[in-house]
């Protein structure tokens, strides 16, 4: 591919989604965008690049961005963040919300839904312990295709065997042919909508807990800083932010600080939050239903 053409794709992805493509990842363009080029009647990526100069078709741009997203996810991914959610964050936040008895959670790059649905299963399991709470989980992503998959909540045999305990599969899923679909009561706990993290977040409201896991890794420092800065305005003063295992706020933004003793969890810089982390909450392996 010509450097000029590579730059067209690189710039488009950066402006439209924040995703950074370095020259050593050029092969990703080839493997992921060649099918898009074919669908749009272009012989190859160079031909499609020509069509992207000037005022390109918005639908084509959208397809290119979607094709370049990495949607890798799994139920209870990395386990520990979910043990922490169940045994430390949820007890803390329900205590904080004894008066309003409302809980708002945002999964800011939810992919095919495993992350928000893991949370709804925990909320369902824990409901008795915390009494009646009105819970609202919002799942957003830049890929419409992946959101559609999240809404239908139908997963392959492979997907339901990664991270999901068999007891939860039996309890919350229905088998349809070779696939598994989440039951309606868990499904309807999550609302999905398209949202680009580069866009203004003011319309989204305020959340008690934000999951923004395994997406900042695709962005450059300035974009990370900008997103985290705006995100801090959507997090309640006593709220909790989750980042992915390879992500941090340190050296990126002053808006958040790590919660003492709890890796991967962050709070407002001026927050006085202290979480009680039991051995159970800190368990690295095995999400226990």
């Amino acid at each position: 591919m010509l450097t000029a053409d590579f730059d067209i794709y690189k710039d488009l992805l950066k402006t439209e989604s924040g995703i950074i493509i370095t020259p050593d990842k050029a092969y990703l363009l080839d493997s992921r965008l060649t099918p898009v080029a074919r669908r749009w009647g272009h012989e190859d990526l160079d031909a499609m690049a020509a069509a992207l100069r000037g005022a390109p078709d918005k639908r084509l741009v959208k397809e290119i961005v979607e094709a370049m997203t990495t949607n890798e996810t799994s139920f209870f991914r990395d386990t520990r963040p979910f043990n922490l959610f169940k045994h430390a964050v949820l007890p803390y936040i329900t205590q904080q919300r004894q008066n309003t008895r409302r809980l708002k959670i945002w999964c800011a790059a939810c992919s095919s839904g495993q992350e928000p649905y893991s949370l709804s299963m925990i909320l369902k399991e824990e409901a008795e312990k915390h009494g009646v709470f009105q819970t609202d989980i919002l799942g957003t992503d830049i890929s419409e295709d992946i959101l559609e998959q999240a809404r239908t909540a139908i997963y392959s045999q492979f997907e339901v065997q990664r991270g999901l305990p068999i007891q939860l599969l039996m309890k919350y899923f229905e088998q349809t042919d070779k696939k598994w679909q989440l039951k309606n009561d868990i499904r309807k706990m999550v609302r999905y909508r398209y949202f680009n993290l580069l866009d203004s977040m003011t319309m989204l409201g305020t959340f008690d807990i934000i999951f923004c896991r395994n997406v900042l890794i695709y962005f450059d420092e300035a974009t990370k800083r900008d997103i985290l800065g705006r995100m801090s305005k959507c997090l309640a003063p006593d709220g909790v932010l989750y980042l992915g295992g390879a992500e941090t706020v340190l050296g990126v933004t002053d808006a958040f600080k790590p919660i003492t003793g709890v890796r991967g969890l962050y709070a407002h810089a001026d927050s006085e939050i202290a979480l009680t982390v039991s051995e159970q909450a800190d368990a690295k392996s095995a999400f226990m239903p």
Partner: protein
Amino acid sequence: MLCLIVDDSSVVRKVVRRILEEMDIDCAEAADGQQAFESCQNTMPDVIMLDWNMPVMNGMEFMCKLRAHPTPTQPKVIFCTTENDTDHIQAALAAGADEYIMKPFDSDIIRSKFEQIGLL
């Protein structure tokens, strides 16, 4: 940690063994439930990867016999089978299985299931 791999297909046993050895887990093999039971009487493993349909004694019969057998510690049992419907899975869990792998599987799934029951 010792894992007993019980499957009448030597190919499946070999594939599972290769994945487990990558994870630094020692392996023993048995080709049916009867062999598996004898192997357990010699050396009790920490975990058993168990096929369902096998000649001589099937996986379910073996597990029930094992669970009824007085031993200081019971190994964890992970079914690993093509019996992939809810009825079979429920029956296995009710009879004392700890986890359940639906074939075909890959190394991610095996690792995930081992983590699930606290072995890793």
